[in-house]
């Protein structure tokens, strides 16, 4: 038997067929991932378009302002001891070290942190003030220097217990 005849004889033998499960397994692997939702992607609103540009930091800052305002405006709900007075006007004082220096203290936040028992002095409310102290002075050459110092004060306010 020459080579072509022998090759044809070998080719006439068919390889074993795969089981049906192989086809199913491949079909499962090649199946497209399920689509959760279909439709036209809605056009972005102006806000959504601008948010990435300005960043979420702006949103966070705006939220913080709103929360601070609401804390100052709404006050306490229900009968509570009188809230400590926060002077809305900045306190302007003359610094002792420099003749022409001024110090402005501006309270930016105040929060109550519950009650503490001071023993003989009774019960007190704990109030935390966050403020910014601005120091400004002018030197001999006329240059103005402005320094902002964040401050945090915890004040105990005596509370009456009935």
């Amino acid at each position, binding site marked *: *038997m020459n*080579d072509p005849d*022998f*090759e044809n*004889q*070998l*080719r*006439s*033998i*068919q*390889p*074993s*067929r*795969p*089981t*049906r*499960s*192989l*086809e*199913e*397994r*491949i*079909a499962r*692997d*090649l199946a497209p991932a399920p689509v959760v939702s279909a439709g036209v992607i809605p056009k972005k609103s102006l806000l959504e378009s601008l948010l990435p540009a300005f960043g979420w930091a702006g949103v966070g800052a705006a939220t913080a302002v709103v929360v601070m305002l609401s804390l100052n405006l709404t006050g306490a709900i229900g009968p509570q001891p009188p809230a400590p007075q926060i002077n809305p006007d900045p306190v302007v004082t003359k610094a002792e070290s420099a003749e022409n220096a001024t110090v402005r203290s501006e309270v930016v936040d105040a929060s109550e942190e519950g009650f503490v028992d001071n023993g003989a002095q009774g019960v007190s409310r704990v109030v935390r003030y966050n403020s910014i102290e601005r120091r400004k002075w002018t030197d001999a050459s006329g240059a103005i220097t402005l320094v902002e110092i964040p401050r945090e004060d915890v004040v105990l306010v005596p509370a009456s217990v009935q």
Partner: protein
Amino acid sequence: MFATHADEPWHRCYRELAPKLLLFARQWMPSQADAEDVVQAAFVRFWKKHPTAEREHYPLLYAAVRTIALDTLRGNDRRIRRENAPEAEVPRDGDPCFDLAMEQAELAVAVDHSLRQLPGEQREVVVLKLWGDLTFQEIADMLGAPLNTVAARYRYALDKLRERMTTYERS
């Protein structure tokens, strides 16, 4: 059940190549089930890269089968060595590689038996050439071997097959 994906593009390629790929994978894998695992992995990997597979891409599919089969075999060898279990050696004789439910069942058994006795480098060339329908050039590219080397392996393998089949049929 099978009509559900019979019209899908991959199915035409699968229907044409699956038995050939399986036979090719059987050159390394001891059982039909292991070979099917290899074909499954290779076919899925291939189809995801070539969703419009043409005839010219088919050598890549055979190459994927070869790579995955060898990787699997190496993994098995490592596992066997690790487990230090001599009885767990990979058997070289398993399910028949050819369809025995046909008129040429005896010839199929003879070919199967003779094929297993060929050196691996000759066996894979014969399988790719005769049943994979690849050209010598495609086989050479796939194996990274010179064209003349591939042709020589085929020639040697064919001679040995003829000789061993004659011996087998006589016995």
